[in-house]
């Protein structure tokens, strides 16, 4: 970790210091609302029907688990994705176009790559906070099956970073925020709905199952869920980790290039 990147992180924390209270309240309330409505409310309906919708015979891993316990780790991964997408779109545009704070940074000994690293460490810290509070809420809802479930927290952090890095790289190529609407509408929301967060992807038609398995959020959801429920298999877990790790690494490499091009010209 180079020192200049830490100075970029200091800047982000200084800005965050102004909004941390509101941010913590909403990071706590949001999972409460979701788990209450979907997990408890909708979940009672699912569980009353024998949990068929949430697994049945095909989703062997889910047998014997309440819908709430099934939903929570999936939602954890999805929340990490959404937080990451939020933090790596508009704030990047802000630094480049609106208040131009990144341009101010690179007029000093700080390099564009330091901006990328500092910014991503900050996003990682934000993710850890959001995911940590989410997990706490899950515990309070009694939806945690054992101490191993805490592993879902680092898994969700990795899921978030796997989105944050490439999206930040993309954001640095944009002149205005119009592209972000498409990213959320055609990227984030469909992934949120169809990557196994709310129902096992085995419920999807064969072709869509295949699609879901190559998209990143499914890997995050399945990683979090299998770790939380203690059903993780070494082989598939490794696939998830390599997939999400590579996406993070490639995203960082791409961001180095796009930030350099945008800031130094």
């Amino acid at each position: 970790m180079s020192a200049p990147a830490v100075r970029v992180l200091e800047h982000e924390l200084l800005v965050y210091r102004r909004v941390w209270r509101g941010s913590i309240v909403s990071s706590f309330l949001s999972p409460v609302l979701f788990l209450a409505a979907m997990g408890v409310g909708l979940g009672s309906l699912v569980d009353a029907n024998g949990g068929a919708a949430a697994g049945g015979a095909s989703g062997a891993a889910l047998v014997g688990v309440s819908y709430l316990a099934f939903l929570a780790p999936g939602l954890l991964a999805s929340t990490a994705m959404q937080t990451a997408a939020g933090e790596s779109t508009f704030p990047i545009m802000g630094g480049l176009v609106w208040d131009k704070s990144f341009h101010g940074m690179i007029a000093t000994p700080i390099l564009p790559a330091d901006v990328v690293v500092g910014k991503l460490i900050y996003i990682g810290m934000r993710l850890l906070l959001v995911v940590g509070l989410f997990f706490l809420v899950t515990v309070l809802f009694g939806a945690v099956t054992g101490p191993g479930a805490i592993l879902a927290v680092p898994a969700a952090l990795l899921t978030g970073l796997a989105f944050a890095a490439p999206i930040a790289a993309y954001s640095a190529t944009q002149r205005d925020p119009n592209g972000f609407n498409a990213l959320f509408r055609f990227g984030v929301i469909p992934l949120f709905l169809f990557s196994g967060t709310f129902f096992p992807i085995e419920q999807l038609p064969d072709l869509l199952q295949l699609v879901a398995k190559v998209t990143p959020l499914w890997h995050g959801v399945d990683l979090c869920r299998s770790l939380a429920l203690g059903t993780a298999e070494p082989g598939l877990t490794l696939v998830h980790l390599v997939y999400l790790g590579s996406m993070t690494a490639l995203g960082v490499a791409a961001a180095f290039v796009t930030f350099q091009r945008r800031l130094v010209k």
Partner: protein
Amino acid sequence: MATANPSLIHARGLTKKFGGLTAVDAIDFDVAPGESFGFLGPNGAGKTSAMRMIACVSPVTSGELSVLGMDPQADGPRIRARIGVVPQQDTLDMELTVRDNLSIYGRYFGLSRAVIRQRVDELLDFVQLTERSGDQVEPLSGGMKRRLTIARSLVNEPDLLLLDEPTTGLDPQARHLLWDRLYRLKQKGVTLVLTTHYMDEAEQLCDRLVVMDKAKIVAEGSPRQLIEEHSTREVLEMRFPVGVQETLGGQLDDLGDRVEHLPDRVLVYTDDGDGAATIAHERGLRPEMVLVRRSSLEDVFLRLTGRSLVD
């Protein structure tokens, strides 16, 4: 090599291209320590591109450039550690306070918190923002933001200060306050390099300047030298009623060394403005407005390029 050169900035054949567009076309200049040096020219002349290369945030396309005896390509961070930059558009953190803007900028240079605390107090005092130190930046006036940007550029106690159009868009009072602060820096021995399209600013602040037009340097010298070389002592300005100027033909052409027909007025370049005005009157010409003034850099620019500085 480059270190043997006493210039703070040394440029030969310095060129910047963006694709097919040549923004800076093989310019040569040197800036000496302690000097106050200006790039004067209209928008799009290449001033900002030149400044960005000096600030090591824009790679040189071709030619030679050394800043503080170092090569921007190889030593960017080391050079940037010793320069201060006031960009054309402020890059302040709107969400942070005045004080935090200065403090975090000090951190970017790796300064310790103790050093920063002391310098920030001094700088706030210098730019007269002490009372606003706890306020957010966003609601500050344009002049205050500009002063804050200047304070920020001084946080690393730079050897060289680069100012890209420091007072564009400010009201006259704010501009004079800024000029006063820059003049004080100059007296302290800080080397200033600035771009401007205001002649009065160049005359006030620059020991020496280059006039840029269409990516090239078209003249170089002190403001006084440039005026002496490229213009007359006085200028007679006349404005005629609408439609009359077009009917004058060559009636004014022998009144001075040179006559410029601008869309809204006629300029007669002569060493005796009052004499020329008298002759015009004797010829029966009745302008709505007659003004005799000293030549300025605006006239130099008009002479050199055939165009006005500010459209």
